[in-house]
């Protein structure tokens, strides 16, 4: 397993006007489960192909264990990949598929390793079959297993591997994947647009947007201290609410109300808060920002209380909170934001971060 | 089922729509013939006579009179469009492009004269015969089919037609006796079945200039003990071939060959055999035109009934002479001809002598004459006279005087009973027009395929003679009667002719011996005859096979089939060309 | 239609083929067949077996004509037997 370092990696397809990736720098630690989170078109696949060596990159940008692999073909890089839809060699049995990446090793080693990995992923029963006889999910399990058989693999890439699975099964698969990752100490990069998957899987997550990494951080940090408006919006469900606000002195104002304190230069800003960092109450009274509650969505219940989302309009901006729904009805209401959770952005980037 | 007339409209409609999309037809001859009232046929005829139909054996007035008859006779058919077909040949091209136009302007009948490959013409003819559906209104096909035509009854006997329903459209000045190929198109019943349109013969061809060279003559004499000249027998031909191919080798720096032929597996491979090869070798019986009772195909007839082709039934198709013929053909091709000859068809090999490296060819079609007298060719002198000459073909050791000596055929107009009468009549008018004395001489000069004695005797032909390498002399001589087409012994030419080329090809490839090939061929011919007999559809002159006997019995009897000669190579014999031509000029057969 | 050169035996033959096609179709409509696997090494429907039976019959006749001069009727009987067997167990 290797540590992976990207140093100011840029990429432009021949003939394309704009760079698909620009100035990416990233460190993935040895044995780390790393996730790349971004929507379609953010450049995830390009980055994967650069890492695996399917696309050549300029020298001096990609290092595995300090070794420049930028111009190296895929095989010597010892990278394996699990694709969105399972890719198996159809003419080979499952066992042969698993053994194929180890074909340079002694047969006994191969066999042992195949059995080991197959057991780990509970596909032992499938070893004698051909891919055509497997279900989609089984195929993907085998594909995952194949990505892990090679003992000297330096990096495992996972490209939205769970798309094919239905929700009830995703948990199971992901958990297996994580356990294997932990046990084998594999360096994994998991690419997805699904923030739940990214956050639950990874030790650290990089948010990719328009060819740039906006932030690399642990899941909690991403949620609580997004470095960029887009991270705030993209991570969390629903994403962060954003209001037009202003910094005046050390005060942060929104809609003319002071909602918290922030150390930053005065001027207009965007105020962000997560749905769970604020509460809405019905009725005109009390403090907080006056809003118009427009609707509710139940998400579940917890000990006799309904939990859900409340939607409200603040001027022309829509906001959502996630809270207990007791006593909420549409009509006028008040929004209270927990002041200690306040995050402000200017020109997209976060300002006034402590330290 | 829809009637013929009514059923065509969808096709025309669809095609019309499609063609309209292509920007419309700009064909000038398209559309209906111009209204009859406004056409001055007399003036047209005069114009054609002045501009095209000269020279002619008729004086201008007689020409105009003849054409006036056409105009009058064609009146009921004005506006009609008829289709006739023939193979591609200079003569027919002239008919197709010039004479159809003249005919339309003189008679108001529009003729489409199609030119296609000969095999396709026969295919169309057969299609019409077997289906009874009209495909073409008239065909020009070789008189080889006379035995077929006279037996099956698909073809209109012209004698009957001219006397009967076609009397009103039969040219009074047609002068049938003037046609030199008339006997070829006459059936065993004495009726005329076809009207000759163009005629050609198969002669010996050689490089007169080389044969006159003293150095070569001396060398030849020294080697073979007799004079280099026109070979009379195959031994001489073989010697000359050997001489040029293996001893002279090069003339003026160019590799030369003493023989040219073709050997590719192709229907044309059978022609040379069915045309004359067996008779030239001497397989059949004497009796011009084709040999009686055994003809040049090796088929015996009893009366007019074919009785067998195998020796066992009295035929000669697999007799020693026939086998000898096949073997000679193969040997010569292999030993004396240019190497590529074995891969050629008739059409490919034909023009080769014109390239100037062939010394002689035993079997050469006069249809190539036109292509061999073009100025600038290696075989044409600066003054336009040819370096080559044609002469009678040599014959094989089995041949005896009174036997057919070569092949001559006439492409002739054939009318089928399944063609509606009015169309047949219109086509008959056209056929007579293109062979009429008004037109004939001009056509002969263009295509060099003479059909009329009057043309041959004309001044114009005499003038042309020096350029034609002996063609005129040949045709003017009585010797020409020894050159004939396939005769009446062959009751189903298409079925039987197709048997030859695969069997010959078998032998050429070495897969079977010549004897085995001819045995198979003869057997297959008998089989066809047997089927015809079984079906009993050919009536009085239909096949009736002899019972098979020990071949030795037949071989022992006089006449064909002839027993194997102890010496198949008698001494070579040649004649000086100039003596020969002198004999022809004097009207002798030599 | 005279050009089609009809003969009584061929007319009977084609009538029989047409009739059996009609019968097969009606049978299929009345009781749809279920694909199954019998003696033949593949899954067949009734129509498939019918086709195989026809093909078998054709080749049986061909072989018969090629190798023996015995009456063709024997081959026809054999073909019928084979056909019934194929329909039943194929």
């Amino acid at each position, binding site marked *: 397993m290797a540590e992976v370092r990207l140093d100011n990696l840029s990429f432009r397809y021949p003939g394309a006007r704009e760079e698909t990736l620009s100035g990416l720098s990233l460190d993935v630690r040895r044995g780390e489960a790393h996730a790349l989170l971004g929507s379609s078109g953010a450049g995830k696949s390009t980055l994967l192909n650069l890492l695996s060596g399917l696309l050549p990159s300029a020298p001096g940008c990609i290092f595995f264990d300090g070794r420049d692999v930028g111009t190296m073909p895929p095989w010597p890089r010892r990278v394996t990949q699990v694709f969105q839809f399972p890719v198996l060699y159809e003419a080979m049995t499952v066992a042969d598929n698993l053994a194929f990446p180890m074909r340079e090793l002694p047969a006994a080693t191969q066999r042992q390793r195949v059995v080991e990995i197959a057991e780990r992923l509970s596909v032992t029963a499938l070893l004698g079959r051909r891919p055509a006889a497997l279900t989609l999910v089984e195929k993907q399990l085998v594909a995952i297993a194949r990505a892990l058989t090679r003992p000297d693999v330096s990096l495992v890439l996972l490209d939205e591997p769970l798309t094919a699975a239905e929700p009830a099964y995703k948990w199971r698969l992901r958990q297996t994947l994580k356990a294997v990752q932990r046990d084998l100490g594999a360096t994994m990069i998991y690419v997805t647009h699904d923030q739940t998957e990214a956050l639950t899987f990874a030790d650290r997550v990089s948010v990719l947007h328009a060819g740039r990494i906006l932030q690399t951080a642990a899941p909690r940090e991403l949620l609580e201290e997004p470095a960029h408006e887009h991270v705030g919006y993209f991570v969390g469900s629903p994403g962060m609410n954003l209001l037009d606000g202003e910094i005046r002195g050390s005060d942060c104002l929104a809609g003319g109300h002071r909602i918290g304190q922030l150390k930053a230069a005065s001027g207009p800003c965007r105020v962000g808060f997560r749905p769970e960092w604020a509460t809405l109450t019905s009725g005109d009274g009390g403090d907080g920002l006056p809003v118009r509650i427009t609707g509710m969505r139940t998400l579940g219940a917890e000990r006799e209380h309904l939990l859900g989302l409340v939607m409200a309009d603040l001027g022309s901006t829509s906001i959502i909170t996630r809270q207990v729904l007791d006593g909420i009805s549409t009509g006028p209401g008040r929004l209270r934001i927990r002041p200690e959770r306040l995050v402000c952005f200017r020109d997209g980037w976060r300002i006034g971060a402590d330290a | 089922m829809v009637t013929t007339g009514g059923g065509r409209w969808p096709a025309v409609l669809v095609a019309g729509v499609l063609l309209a999309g292509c920007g419309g037809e700009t064909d000038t001859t398209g559309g209906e013939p111009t209204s009859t009232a406004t056409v001055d046929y007399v003036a047209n005829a005069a114009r054609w006579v002045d501009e095209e139909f000269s020279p002619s054996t008729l004086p201008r007035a007689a020409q105009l009179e003849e054409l006036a008859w056409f105009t009058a006779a064609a009146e009921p058919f004005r506006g009609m469009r008829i289709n006739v077909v023939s193979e591609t040949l200079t003569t027919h091209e002239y008919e197709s492009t010039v004479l159809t136009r003249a005919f339309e302007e003189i008679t108001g009948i529009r003729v489409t004269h199609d030119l296609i490959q000969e095999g396709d013409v026969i295919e169309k003819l057969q299609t019409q015969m077997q289906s009874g559906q009209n495909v073409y209104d008239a065909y020009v096909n070789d008189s080889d089919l006379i035995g077929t035509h006279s037996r099956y009854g698909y073809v209109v006997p012209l004698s009957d037609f001219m006397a009967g329903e076609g009397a009103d459209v039969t040219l009074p000045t047609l002068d049938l006796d003037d046609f030199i190929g008339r006997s070829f198109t006459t059936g065993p019943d004495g009726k005329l079945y076809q009207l000759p349109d163009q005629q050609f013969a198969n002669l010996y061809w050689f490089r007169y200039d080389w044969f006159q060279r003293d150095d070569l003559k001396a060398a030849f004499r020294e080697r073979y003990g007799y004079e280099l000249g026109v070979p009379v027998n195959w031994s001489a031909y073989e010697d000359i071939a050997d001489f040029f191919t293996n001893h002279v080798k090069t003339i003026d720096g160019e590799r030369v060959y003493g023989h040219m032929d073709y050997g590719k*597996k192709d229907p044309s491979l059978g022609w040379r055999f069915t045309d004359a090869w067996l008779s030239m070798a001497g397989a059949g019986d004497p009796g011009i035109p084709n040999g009686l009772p055994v003809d040049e195909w090796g088929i015996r007839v009893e009366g007019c009934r074919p009785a067998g082709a195998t020796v066992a039934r009295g035929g000669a198709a697999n007799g020693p002479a026939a086998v000898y013929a096949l073997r000679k053909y193969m040997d010569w091709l292999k030993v004396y001809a240019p190497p590529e000859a074995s891969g050629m068809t008739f059409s490919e090999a034909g023009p080769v002598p014109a390239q100037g490296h062939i010394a002689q060819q035993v079997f050469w079609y006069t249809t190539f004459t036109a292509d061999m007298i073009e100025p600038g060719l290696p075989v044409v002198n600066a003054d336009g006279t040819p370096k080559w000459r044609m002469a009678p073909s040599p014959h094989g050791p089995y041949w005896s005087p009174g036997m057919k000596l070569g092949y001559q055929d006439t492409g002739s107009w054939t009318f089928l009973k399944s063609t509606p009468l009015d169309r047949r009549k219109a086509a008959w008018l056209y056929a007579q027009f293109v062979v009429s004395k008004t037109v004939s001489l001009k056509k002969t000069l263009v295509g060099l395929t003479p059909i009329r004695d009057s043309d041959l005797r004309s001044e114009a032909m005499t003038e042309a003679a020096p350029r034609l390498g002996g063609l005129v002399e040949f045709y003017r001589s009585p010797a020409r009667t020894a050159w004939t087409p396939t005769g009446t012994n062959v009751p189903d030419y298409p079925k039987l002719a197709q048997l030859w080329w695969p069997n010959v090809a078998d032998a050429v*490839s070495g897969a079977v011996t010549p004897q085995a090939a001819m045995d198979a061929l003869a057997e297959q011919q008998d089989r066809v005859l047997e089927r015809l007999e079984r079906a009993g559809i050919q009536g009085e002159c239909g096949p009736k096979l002899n019972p098979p006997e020990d071949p030795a019995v037949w071989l022992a009897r006089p006449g064909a089939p002839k027993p194997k000669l102890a010496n198949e190579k008698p001494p070579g014999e040649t004649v000086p060309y100039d003596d020969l031509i002198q004999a022809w000029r004097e009207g002798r057969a030599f | 239609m005279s050009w089609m050169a009809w003969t009584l035996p061929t007319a009977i033959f084609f009538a029989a083929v047409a009739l059996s096609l009609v019968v097969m179709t009606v049978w299929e409509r009345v009781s749809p067949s279920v694909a199954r696997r019998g003696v033949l090494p593949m899954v067949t429907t009734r129509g498939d077996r019918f086709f195989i039976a026809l093909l078998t019959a054709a080749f049986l006749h061909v072989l018969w004509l090629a190798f023996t001069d015995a009456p063709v009727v024997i081959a026809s009987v054999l073909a019928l037997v084979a056909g019934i067997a194929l329909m039943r167990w194929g």
Partner: protein
Amino acid sequence: MPETMPDNRAWLGVLPVLLVVAFSAVIPLMTVVNYSVQDIFDVHTRLFVGFDWYRETLRDPRFLDALVRQLGFSAAVLALEVPLGILVARALPRDGRWVGVLLVLLAVPLLIPWNVVGTIWQLFARPDIGLLGRAVNELGIPFNYTAEPLHAWITLLMMDVWHWTSLVALLAFSGLTAIPGQCYQAAAMDGMSGVQVFRHVELPRLKSVLVIAVLLRLMDSFMIYTEPFVLTGGGPGNSTTFLSQYLTTMAVGQFDLGPAAAFSVLYFLVVLLLCWLFYTSVIAERGER
């Protein structure tokens, strides 16, 4: 969810095809069968002969030889064209502006009238005036396809390969373009060699198009007539005489309809059997129509 719905009204959709094909297939086919039991001279003159023609044809060594040659030719054609077609397809670039041009060039031989194809090769291979024939002879190798059966076969196969490999190549190419890029990526990461990529990634996915290619080539090569007729005429000897050559001589040359009809019924049965076996294996393989 069933892929297709049972509905016999669909017959209405098939009806036009049925009418067109019945008109141009069933009537002639019946006529041919009628012919095959008679000795036909013309429409009105015919003689019932039973199975005679069949018996005669089946015992005709020429028919059997032609059949064997035919099978050999079809096998050789498939053995040459399928691998070469795949190789060519693999060599074609998958995208870029030249693909269109290349495909058009590739398709050209398919659109040349068959007699022209024969003529082209005849002109090309003739030892005296052909580029190929002359070049080979000038290299000191005696080459004459009209005299040497082996040369004839080589030339014929070269011609057929020239004429038809494009079809296989285009089919294989379309099969290749349908292979998801991910399969190639996986192979690249597994460090597969070109041969391994072909063997493990491409071949399994090309199977269905190759089946089509083989079927079409089998049918067409089994009926090849015009090109070899123009090129070799079936010679030298009978060395390149295939079934349809023999048949056409009989049917068109001699207009001997009875035996020709029996011949072609047998011929048809052989093709039918071969294709049915193939077709059935396609169904078995793909589990569909």
